[in-house]
């Protein structure tokens, strides 16, 4: 079983306490009325499914019942970090590529 660090509770908890809630960092359009159908459809229905790092929303369902973000590798399932909503991830594909180019392994 995976242990996941809840940034609110401040400790590792077993996976069964959590539920995933999809892609993170999806900003709701500030003025939905002004969106084209395509823009609104993009916001509502389309999600990324990358092979590699993905930023996801998770819910600590049996614990503090709060959402937080996680950066997870979709191949290895490794969770590299968890962070509160409103914060930015430290691990990104872009940063990973940069460090790989510099010969630094993640």
């Amino acid at each position, binding site marked *: *079983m995976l242990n996941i660090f809840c940034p*609110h*509770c*401040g*400790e590792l*908890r*077993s996976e*069964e*306490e959590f539920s995933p809630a999809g892609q993170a960092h999806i900003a709701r359009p500030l003025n939905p009325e002004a969106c084209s159908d395509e823009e609104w459809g993009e916001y509502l229905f389309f999600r990324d499914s990358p092979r590699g790092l993905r930023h996801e929303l998770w819910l600590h*369902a*049996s*614990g*503090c*019942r*709060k959402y937080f973000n996680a950066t997870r590798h979709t191949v290895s399932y490794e969770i590299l970090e968890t962070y509160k909503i409103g914060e930015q991830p430290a691990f990104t594909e872009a940063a990973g590529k940069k460090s790989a180019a510099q010969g630094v392994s993640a």
Partner: protein
Amino acid sequence: MTAINVYNQRPADIAGQSPLHHAGFEQLIGKGRPNAGVRLRERKLLGHLTLRGDAKDPAFCGGVHQALGLELPVALGLVAKGETSLQWMGPDEWLLIVPRGEEYATELRLREALAGQHIQVVNVSGGQTILELKGDKVRDMLMKSTSYDVHPDNFPVGKAVGTVFAKSQLVIRHTAENTWELLVRRSFADYIWLWLQDACAEYGLAIEA
């Protein structure tokens, strides 16, 4: 700003009924095995208030302290003064438990101390109950029931966690040495009571008043 309808939800002339009323604990007192490893007591019909606000706002923390005489606990913390306890439930949520019948006056006191602030106080007394477990074998029983580490190194007195328990969910509170409380939702109370009887069978279960 919406008007808030604040009223005494449990007037003294209406008898309350615990979600475990049907278990008939009164009739079970003294019938368990002598020297039972787990002794159970329902702390029923207490006043439960959910309090929400911004812990980073000194006005909120100060107001709570003024109304309750308790400091807001940080993550996974549980503080108590006499029969009143305040537990961290989430980064902006606490559970306040007061003696039976004091919830309305407490709510009014909180609302007065926090007037004008962006806060919430909700009386959830009818939605949950507390089972207090004492004895040498309580920790063994908990270990069978939850994946959370209940060793005192990880779970000292004064800590409280929401977690999975018997394929269900509840809050475990470590209130004193060999004394634990389970905060159980009303709709799960019967299931948890059945589970506890089964899980405690090997240690002996005694019901206390």
